[in-house]
């Protein structure tokens, strides 16, 4: 199934009609599809953005194909299989997973219950982020984290938008396919992109996914019940995450995590003493042309090497 078919399968109302007429090349090259009430559909690609008219062809902004609140409501209903209640936790976190591993960010009015966001109503925009799996993108990093029959505890570090999750997913897949048992704690369904119980992304043959589990609870549960050799987790940082990381490390199970940050100082600030549990730090960076590369450091902050990431 192509990206167009994946998005089309969960589209409803007028949006569905427009998508049906839209060239699939726009979907294949899309990074984001923005659906805003009162505006035309906007497809954002690597170097440009186009508005889509009612005939499915590029048109001027504010053309005849403005999306209504009802269209967005139907779209959310379709994305949830007519069952927003079943995805309440995700919707209240501001997103939903859809087939193909894509994610739809949701904006609207928050319904607050006991001080927490219980639901989002009056949905005014959806941002569908297109998942492009880049198999082999982290191939160059593997040699730094494997060695002596053991996977070193590794933290992939970067600010948002540099591809931490993509690199982590590729590392998990490579390591898992080599026969290592990996337990993946995927709190926001971003790495395996589980949709209705099925991983939409290739995460390897020996990976067990704990989908939707809070990170710390998921990591400790995996440690107790799944006999993993590696526990992988996205965006660690809270106090409980750090405690879990320490416990896992003591038990001799490997760690593969991502952390928000730009420098080692920021990582230490975020992880505190938890940073000492990691052997390798992979910092993701972008060059002037927008290409991504990784700087690999050891625990003593010694640069081990630089590797270009294969983005193709």
């Amino acid at each position, binding site marked *: 199934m192509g990206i167009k078919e994946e998005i089309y*399968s*969960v589209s*409803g*109302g007028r949006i569905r009609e427009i998508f049906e007429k839209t060239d699939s090349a726009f979907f294949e090259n899309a990074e984001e599809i923005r659906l805003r009430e009162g505006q035309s559909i906007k497809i954002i690609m690597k170097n440009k953005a186009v508005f889509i008219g009612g005939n499915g062809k590029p048109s001027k902004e504010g053309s005849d194909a403005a999306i209504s609140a009802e269209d967005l409501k*139907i779209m959310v*209903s*379709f994305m*949830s*299989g*007519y*069952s*927003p*209640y*079943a*995805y*309440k936790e995700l919707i209240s976190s501001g997103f939903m997973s859809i087939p193909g591993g894509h994610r739809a960010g949701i904006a609207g009015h928050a319904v607050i219950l006991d001080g927490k966001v219980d*639901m989002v109503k009056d949905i005014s925009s959806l941002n569908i982020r297109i998942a492009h799996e880049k198999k082999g993108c982290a191939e160059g990093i593997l040699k730094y984290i494997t060695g002596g029959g053991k996977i070193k505890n590794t933290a992939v570090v970067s600010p948002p938008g540099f591809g931490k999750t993509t690199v982590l997913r590729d590392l998990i897949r490579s390591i898992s396919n080599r026969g290592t048992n990996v337990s993946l704690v995927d709190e926001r369904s971003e790495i395996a992109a589980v949709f*209705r119980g099925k991983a939409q992304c290739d995460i390897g043959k020996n990976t067990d996914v704990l989908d939707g589990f809070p990170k710390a609870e998921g990591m400790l549960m995996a440690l107790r019940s799944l006999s993993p050799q590696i526990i992988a987790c996205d965006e660690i940082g809270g106090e409980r995450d750090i405690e879990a990381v320490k416990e896992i490390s003591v038990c001799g199970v490997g760690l593969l995590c991502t952390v928000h940050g730009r420098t080692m100082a920021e990582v230490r600030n975020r992880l505190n003493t938890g940073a000492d549990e990691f052997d390798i730090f992979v910092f993701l960076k972008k060059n002037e042309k927008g290409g991504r590369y990784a700087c690999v450091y050891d625990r003593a902050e010694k640069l081990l090497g630089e590797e270009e990431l294969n983005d193709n």
Partner: protein
Amino acid sequence: MIIKLIGGILVVSSCAASGCIMSRKSRYRIEDIEEMKKAVSFYKGSVCAMGLSAGEAFRETALRIKGAVKSIFEDAAEQTEKREFSDIQQIWKNAVDKNVPSLFLNSEDMETLYSFGAIAGFMDRQQQRENAELIISELERIQKKAGEKCAREEKLFPSAGALCGMLLCILLF
């Protein structure tokens, strides 16, 4: 004379059989209501305890029930996956309408059956639970009434059929 006797026996027994068949319709109606009650209960469990979406709950429920009600849930699950209708109430109505010829329900039962479509989907789990319980209690009420009617008809229809047969015999011979 023997031919007339045989003919008379045939007329009386076939009229009595028709009465039995008519009384069986009430029994089938009760069975349909019972299946629907079971189905709503399974659906409630699938949604409230297992957290399944409406389509998944339809499919899961269809695995546990039988007859025409099973077909309704199967059709509803299929149409939910296809996403051809804008809301689940339309999907449910469509699935019910498609299976009406195989059901033995009357208009009151059908109204309750259609109302199930309104509870599926949009509302939160708690509200769906409450509404499902409401429908189950309504089905129980209908089933009780249908049971009393069925008991009366099971006695009445075969004997009424036999009497009609005798009347026919008298008139014919």
